[in-house]
C-alpha cells in the first residue's frame, strides 16, 4: 500500500472513520488524537478500547462513533483483547478461511488503563509480538472516574486523590516514563506524539503501520476538566508541552532514538504549568521548590534524550 500524502486539503476529502455525535467533553484532546490516527492511513483497522473516557463516550447503547470494527471488553485488557482479535485474523487467514486484507490492529487506552491497571496485559501482548499498535492517550489522571492520580500524573499535580493539601501539596512522585519502559521491551517501534503536531503524529502512525510486530505510541491528551483549564486550549497546551520539553516528540525505532521535533527555543516548564489550575498551588509563595524540582526533572530527562538522540548519529549528524 502506498503511503497517504499528509496534506490537510487532501486528507479532508477522505471519509471520516470516527464520527461526530460522540459524547466526549467539549475541547477534549482524545477525539482529536483518534481522528488523526485513523486518518493517517487507508489500511483497514480494527480497534479495541480500554474502559475509560474514550470508550464510555463513543459507544453508548445503539450509538457508536466508530466506523471501524471496535471492541471494548474491560479496563485492564485492551492489549489482550486486541491480541485475541489479531490471533483470530492470523488463524483464519492462515487456514484460507478469509482473505488477507492487510488489516491493522490498534488498542486505545487512557493512562490509567495503560500505565497502571492494564500494564501487565500491555507488557504481555508486546512481548508476544502481536502485529498490533497500542496507543495511549495520556491525560495524566483517571479522568473518567473524576480526576484521580495515576502513575502518569506529573509531579505536584492537584488531583482528587492527591489534592494540594496543607501537608502534602499534590502528587509527591514524578510520573512513570512509560514510553521508555515500552522501548525496553525491545519492540520495533515506540513513539511519543502530540495532537498539536498533527503531521508528526500521522507520520509516526504511517511508519508504525509499515512495521510488522508490536508498536507503542504515547500521545499527550489535554483534559480541560482534569487540568483545570479552558475548553479551547487543548492544542495550545499540547504545543507548550512540546516546547517546554515536558513532552518531547521522539521515536525509538529498533532501539535507535530520534527526536522528531526539537523546539527552536526550550521554554521554561512554568509556561506549560501556569495555565493549568492543577498546578496553581505550585506558584504560591513558599512552593518555589516544587517548580524547581519539576523543572530539574524535565531538564534531566531532556538532557538524557538529547544524548540518546546524538548517540545514534555520525559526525555529520546523520542517523547511522
Amino acid at each position, binding site marked *: 500500500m502506498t503511503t497517504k500524502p499528509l496534506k490537510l486539503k487532501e486528507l479532508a476529502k477522505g471519509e471520516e472513520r470516527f464520527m461526530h455525535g460522540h459524547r466526549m467533553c467539549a475541547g477534549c484532546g482524545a477525539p482529536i488524537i483518534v481522528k488523526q490516527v485513523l486518518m493517517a492511513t487507508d489500511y*483497514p483497522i*480494527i480497534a*479495541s*478500547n480500554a474502559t475509560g473516557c474514550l*470508550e*464510555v463516550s463513543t*459507544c*453508548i*447503547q*445503539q*450509538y*457508536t462513533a*466508530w*466506523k*471501524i*470494527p*471496535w*471492541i*471494548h*471488553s*474491560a479496563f*485492564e*485488557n485492551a*492489549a*489482550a*483483547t*486486541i*491480541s*485475541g*482479535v*489479531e*490471533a*483470530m*485474523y*492470523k*488463524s*483464519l487467514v*492462515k*487456514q484460507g*478461511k*478469509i482473505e488477507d*486484507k492487510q*488489516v491493522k490492529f490498534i488498542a486505545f487506552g487512557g493512562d490509567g488503563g495503560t500505565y497502571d491497571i492494564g500494564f*501487565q*496485559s500491555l*507488557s*504481555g*501482548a508486546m*512481548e*508476544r509480538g502481536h502485529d498490533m499498535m497500542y496507543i495511549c492517550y495520556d491525560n495524566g489522571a483517571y479522568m473518567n472516574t473524576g480526576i484521580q492520580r495515576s502513575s502518569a500524573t506529573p509531579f505536584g499535580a492537584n488531583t482528587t486523590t492527591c489534592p494540594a493539601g496543607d501537608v502534602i501539596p499534590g502528587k509527591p512522585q514524578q510520573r512513570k516514563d512509560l514510553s521508555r519502559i515500552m522501548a525496553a521491551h525491545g519492540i520495533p517501534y515506540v513513539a511519543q506524539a502530540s495532537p498539536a503536531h498533527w503531521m508528526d503524529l500521522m507520520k509516526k502512525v504511517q511508519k508504525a503501520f509499515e512495521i510488522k510486530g508490536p508498536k507503542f505510541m504515547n500521545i499527550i491528551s489535554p483534559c480541560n476538566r482534569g487540568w483545570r483549564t479552558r475548553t479551547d486550549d487543548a492544542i495550545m497546551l499540547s504545543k507548550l508541552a512540546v516546547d517546554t520539553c515536558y513532552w518531547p516528540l521522539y521515536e525509538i525505532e529498533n532501539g535507535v532514538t530520534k527526536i522528531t521535533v526539537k523546539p527552536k527555543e526550550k521554554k521554561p516548564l512554568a509556561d506549560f504549568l501556569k495555565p493549568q489550575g492543577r498546578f496553581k498551588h505550585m506558584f504560591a509563595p513558599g512552593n518555589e521548590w516544587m517548580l524547581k524540582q519539576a523543572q530539574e526533572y524535565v531538564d534531566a530527562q531532556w538532557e538524557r534524550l538529547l544524548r540518546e538522540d546524538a548517540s545514534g548519529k555520525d559526525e555529520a549528524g546523520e542517523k547511522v
Partner: protein
Amino acid sequence: MGKIVAVTGNEACAQALKQINPDVCAAYPITPATDLMQRFSGFVNDGKVDTELVLVESEHSAMSACIGAAAAGGRVATATSSQGLALMWEMLYIAAGSRLPIIMPLVNRALSAPLNIHGDHSDGMGARDTGWIQIYSENAQEAYDNLIQSFRIAEHLDIRTPAMVCMDGFIVSHSIERVEYIDDADVKNFVGKFQAVHPLLDLDNPKSYGPLILTDLYHEYKRAQHEVMTKVPKVALEVAADFEKMTGRKYGLFETYRLEDAEIAIVVMSSAAGTTKDIIDEYRDKGIKAGLLKPRLFRPFPYLEIADALKHVKAIAVLDRADSFGGYGPLFMEISGAVMSMDTKPAMINKIFGLGGRDYLPDQAEQVLDELVKIAKTGKVENVKEYIGVRE
C-alpha cells in the same frame, strides 16, 4: 469405530480439542489444568492442528484474548483451574454477556487460602452466576464426551453462550482410565463448521462490541440472557441424542442410578458419584432401597426434571464438594430449589465432603446412607449441614 485408550482426563480433553481444531486458544498454565494445554501446545507445534495459540501472561488476559478472538469470529477454547478461574472472574461475565461461545475445560480445584492444588468444586461454584453453561463430568470418558458436545451446545444459534466442562482435579485430570476415543472425522462432522455471528472481522459491516448500557436497557439485556439459559436443556438433550447415535453413549441433563424405586438417595456430582454407586450396590444387596442422582448440567440447573426424578424419595442427602460459608452447600441449595415444587417434600441433609482433595472414601458414603435410613424411618433431621470425612 473409535479407539480404546488408557489416558488421563487431561489427555482425553487435549485429544478432544485436537480433534475439534479450534481457530484460537489462549491459555495460561495452572495446576492441575496445565497438562491439558501443555499437551495441546504439542499438537500446535507439531502442526497437528491449525490453532493459533496465544500464550498469555495471566488468566485474565487468557479470557480477554478469547473474548477478542471469539468476537472476531471463530472457534475458541481455553482451559483453567481454581485461582486461574478466580482471576478470570470479571471476564467470565463479559464473555457470557457478549454471547461469545467460548469453551473452557475447568479442572476443578480448591481455592486459596490456605493454598491447595487438589480437587474440589469451589472454583466452579464461584462461577455459578457468571452466565456460563456448566457441565460436570464423572470421569475421563465423560469429560471427553462432554467437551465435544459442549461446542455444539454453546455454538447453537439459539444459545451462543460460553460453556465450561468440569472434571475433578487430579482425581480425573491425572488418573489413567479407559477411554473410548471417537474417530477424528466423526468428531469433525459432529461438531460441524463454526458459524460466526456478528464477526468483527467482517470489514464491510463494522460493529461495535461492548457499549455502555444504562438503566433503560441493561435489565432487558439480562432478561434476554436468562431466556437463552431456558433453552439450553432442550439443545443439550438434542445434542446428546445425536451423540448417542454416534457413540452409543447416553447423556441426559443428569444421571440416575437405581433411583426409580429408591426410598433414600444421594445427590452428588463428578467423580464421587462413582464411589457412591458402588456403595449403593452394597446397600441394595442388603435390601435397602438406595439410589443416586448425579447432576450433569449445573447451569442451567434442571430444577423441574430433577424434582420429578426425586419425587418418590423419602430422604435425600446432598453431597457438596464446596461450601458456601454461612450458607448450605451450593448443590444443596439447588436441590432445595427443586424440592420446592414437590407436593410431598422429602427430608434433606447436606454433607460437605472432599475439600482440597480430601479422599471421599466408601465409609463416608456408608455413613451418609445409614443416616438416611434412619431419617427415612423417623422423618427427623437432626443436623441439616455437616462436614464429613473431617479429622476430629
